[in-house]
């Protein structure tokens, strides 16, 4: 891997909430086109790690370089960089007062200065890909959980991001809807999108990940290919964790 392949460089990332130290120095790089899956016990800091990547949580130490810019520098305009980092939340967070189409075209029109027609036709193409074109004029409350999450994914994609961050995207779904969301994410991975995914879906991690990070107690305890992590775990903590979830 060459240096200019790095999309995100995280060095010595720390985050404390008051006296509680959640991240105690995370070092890792996210490369272009790579699918990184983050696993770990609850409370280990994996969601916090993901949320610091686009500064939804402000780090208390360390730096994050995104596309060569230190976004933790207070003088950086984070809004511009966030446009290039799509994010999908556990609770979907669709805008309930807007139709699906409006949800998807708001940011492209306001931020990328796309015309309404362009934004709408791009949004319809994305909706077509996830099989929801017929729900374009529905409101979020009329959709099922799986449909909402698929919309949330294409809403983020409508900004044409360079990386997609997924914060436990299937944890709030009914079991029978997990598959439809994972398959959309899998297709996305196959297109070469850079993805960082926090998840409890070990089967999915094994299948889709290029690299797996095991975070525990605020540090990356172990990282490697899915084969290394799932079939040959080295640290006792990871072995213990896997014995509980697999």
């Amino acid at each position, binding site marked *: 891997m060459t240096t200019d392949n790095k999309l995100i460089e995280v060095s010595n990332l720390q985050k404390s909430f008051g006296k509680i130290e959640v991240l105690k120095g995370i070092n890792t790089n996210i490369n272009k086109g790579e699918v990184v899956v983050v696993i770990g016990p609850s409370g280990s800091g994996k969601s916090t790690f993901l949320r610091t990547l686009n500064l939804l949580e402000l780090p208390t130490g360390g730096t994050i370089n995104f596309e060569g810019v230190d976004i933790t520098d207070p003088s950086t305009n984070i*809004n511009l960089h966030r446009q290039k980092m799509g994010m999908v939340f556990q609770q979907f967070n669709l805008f309930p007062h807007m139709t699906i189409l409006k949800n998807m075209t708001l940011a492209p029109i306001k931020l990328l200065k796309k015309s309404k027609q362009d934004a709408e036709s791009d949004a319809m193409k994305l909706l077509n890909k996830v099989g929801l074109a017929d729900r374009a004029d529905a*409101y979020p409350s009329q959709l099922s959980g799986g449909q909402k999450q698929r919309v949330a994914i294409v*809403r983020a994609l409508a900004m044409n991001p360079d990386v997609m961050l997924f914060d436990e995207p299937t944890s709030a779904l009914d079991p029978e809807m997990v598959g439809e969301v994972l398959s959309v994410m899998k297709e996305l991975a196959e297109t070469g999108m850079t993805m960082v995914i926090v998840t409890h879906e070990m089967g999915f991690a094994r299948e889709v990940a290029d690299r797996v990070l095991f975070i525990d107690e605020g540090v990356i305890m172990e990282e490697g290919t899915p084969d290394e992590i799932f079939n040959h775990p080295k640290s006792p903590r990871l072995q213990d964790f896997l014995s509980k979830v697999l």
Partner: protein
Amino acid sequence: MESFINYYKEFYADFSQQFQTVFIKDNRYMQIVKGFQITLQITIGSLILGVILGVIVAAIRSTYDKNKETLKAKGGFGYISLSILNSICKIYLTIIRGTPVVVQLMISYYIIFASIENGIPIGIFAFGINSGAYVAEIFRGGIMSIDNGQFEAGRSIGLNYIQTMWYIIIPQMFKAVLPTLCNEFIALLKETSVVGYVGVTDITKAGNAIAGRTYNFFLPLIAVALVYLAIVMILTSLVSLLERRLRKSDH
């Protein structure tokens, strides 16, 4: 039966004579009409002032609450000026909500604007400042009641703080606070009835003046009450109409 008809006739004759004295003679109904206009002027004026003030105060208070950590980390002028503004807003809210509106009205008239004779602008000022404090807290409560995930979703697609507020939070907030806001407007309309304390002849004062002149309290005061009731009912039905339209998105 006959006695009933007689009683009715007598009552009608009496009533129509009273009606003549109270409303028709000397064009007294015009006092009520003029008073009504003044009540409306003060209510609408203070409503506008109150909403503007309320929006500003709510914006400062919720911006401070939502961003104090980020700004504290950045430090410098932004944080200091915002916390000063926030403190000013808190003092304003405490004073206004801690004292009666009549006292505020009299302080405005006899102390702050002692040199101005016309009570109408002073009434607008006093009721506007008063209403602003309540409207501010209604708006702030509404903003805080919107799930933080909405805010994060807006920020995560690259909208800045103001854009997120404007496109995502405020439309949802407005829907959530509409009934409470309507109550505040109704309360404001009725509160303006104390403006007679500073010599303004609003509809209440006009009714009272007619009562004093004709020694008939029943008709003028009931008439005044009915006018208030009518406006409140119109306002309520307008708001429920608006609510129904806004509810389109949550089936």
